[in-house]
């Protein structure tokens, strides 16, 4: 495994399986009265968040703390970034403070890569979402959640039919999931209005359709994406109501899904827009599981990246 996690492309097939099986074992050993493990004692993990986040930041913080690492939370609001400090100066400050890992969330695509390649910092860089590019730990926790719901497959998703519905254009979750789920053998279909599909989507290893109702019965997994109202600076959809009618998951569509099919959502949800409240709270929904699995998956990633001696140090 590489020393960084910037994109799903950094992971080989066996890296992915090792992360998923580590997460599964961590679930068993943190099930007892004490959830905490001493593994990363004395290591420092910095959460460097330039964008708002509840779930991902808390999830990384919990994961690092369960492994006994020290956690420093840094959000752009209320820091010197709002005084105009550059990413470089911020990075060098973190370097001087002895960070072992930097978990970065940034509004610009490629920010994590920039930080990792810059030489400003020697810490392990973990991408927690960069612009509309990637969000690899979200895809890993989604794959872990799917594997748990289909235990007979033992991590092999060959032939599993997954629909990703909604704002593909702005979604780093969709990009990472397409890369990861196809790597694990799943068959991914993107369902979205043409305005919310990225340029070049025809070269992705997926099927694309504009019509949610034509094949809903076929899917084992339906992953709803958030309509990112903060990125809707152009006229991507005619109205929220029309979007909801054509691409929202409601009771009617829920009923038509396969009996053992599951509903996923990376959160935060716009209840009543892309997903109805009753769909989000139904027995098919694994949305709450996704949050718990997020902590386990991120613990696995932190352990595998920081737990041993880094391979690059070995080479020295």
């Amino acid at each position, binding site marked *: *495994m590489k020393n960084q996690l910037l994109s799903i492309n950094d992971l080989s097939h066996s890296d992915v399986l*090792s992360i998923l*099986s*580590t997460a599964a*074992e*961590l679930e*068993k*050993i943190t099930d*007892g*009265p*004490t959830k*905490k*493990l*001493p*593994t990363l004692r004395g290591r420092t993990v910095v959460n460097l968040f330039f964008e708002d986040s509840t779930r991902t930041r808390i999830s990384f913080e919990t994961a690092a703390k369960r*492994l006994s690492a020290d956690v420093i939370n840094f959000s752009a609001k209320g820091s010197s970034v709002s005084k105009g400090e550059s990413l470089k100066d911020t990075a060098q400050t973190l370097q001087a403070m002895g960070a072992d890992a930097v978990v970065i969330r940034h509004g610009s695509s490629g920010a994590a890569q920039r930080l990792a390649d810059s030489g400003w910092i020697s810490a392990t860089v973990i991408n927690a979402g960069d612009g509309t590019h990637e969000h690899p730990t979200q895809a890993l926790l989604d794959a872990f959640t799917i594997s748990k719901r289909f235990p007979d497959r033992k991590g092999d998703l060959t032939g599993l039919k997954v629909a990703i519905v909604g704002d593909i254009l702005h979604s780093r979750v969709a990009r990472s999931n397409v890369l990861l789920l196809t790597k694990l053998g799943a068959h991914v279909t993107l369902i979205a209005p043409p305005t919310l599909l990225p340029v070049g989507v025809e070269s992705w290893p997926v099927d694309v359709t504009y019509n949610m109702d034509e094949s809903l019965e076929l899917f084992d997994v339906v992953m709803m994406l958030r309509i990112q109202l903060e990125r809707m600076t152009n006229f991507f959809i005619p109205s929220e109501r029309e979007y909801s009618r054509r691409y929202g998951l409601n009771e009617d569509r829920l009923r038509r899904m396969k009996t053992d099919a599951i509903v996923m959502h990376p959160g935060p949800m716009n209840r009543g827009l892309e997903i109805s409240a009753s769909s989000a709270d139904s027995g098919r929904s694994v949305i709450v599981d996704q949050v718990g699995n997020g902590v386990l998956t991120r613990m696995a990633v932190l*352990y*595998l*990246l920081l*737990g*041993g*001696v880094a*391979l690059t140090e*070995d080479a020295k």
Partner: protein
Amino acid sequence: MSAILESADIVRALKRISHEIIEKNQGLDSVVLLGIPTRGAYLAHRIAAILKELGSDVPVGTLDITMHRDDLRMRPPRPLLPTVMPIGGIEGKDVVLVDDVLFSGRTIRAALDALGELGRPKTVQLAVLVDRGHRELPIRADYVGKNLPTSAKESVKVSLMEIDNIDSVEIVGA
């Protein structure tokens, strides 16, 4: 490279350990076996099978100690091995840890830490197939299959039928 213990010797050693466990605990009512993966887990299951022949069902589990090792930073990260709680748990029980080779004692120290996170046993005992000496910590075994004086440069290779297709203990290297 010569076999120190062969299949029959291993069987005999495990039988003796089983009888000693019964004797020391005056029965098996509160005894549970916890094997340390990989080979300790197989040995724990073998001891349980012998105890069953002797008339008692003893719960068996496995305990992965990877997350508690003190040498994590000296090697690449290792995959986690399965931890399985024995039926009835370990709370208030007489836990017998089972491992293949006792060497520095660091694995057992890690196991004691890992155990502390799962619950609070009444006693913790240690059974090993081979004690090769060179302890770095104040740890000793309660049940030893074979005391094997070695030089620190040598290594002891335990092979078990379940994964290695042969039962043997050898000293490798000099």
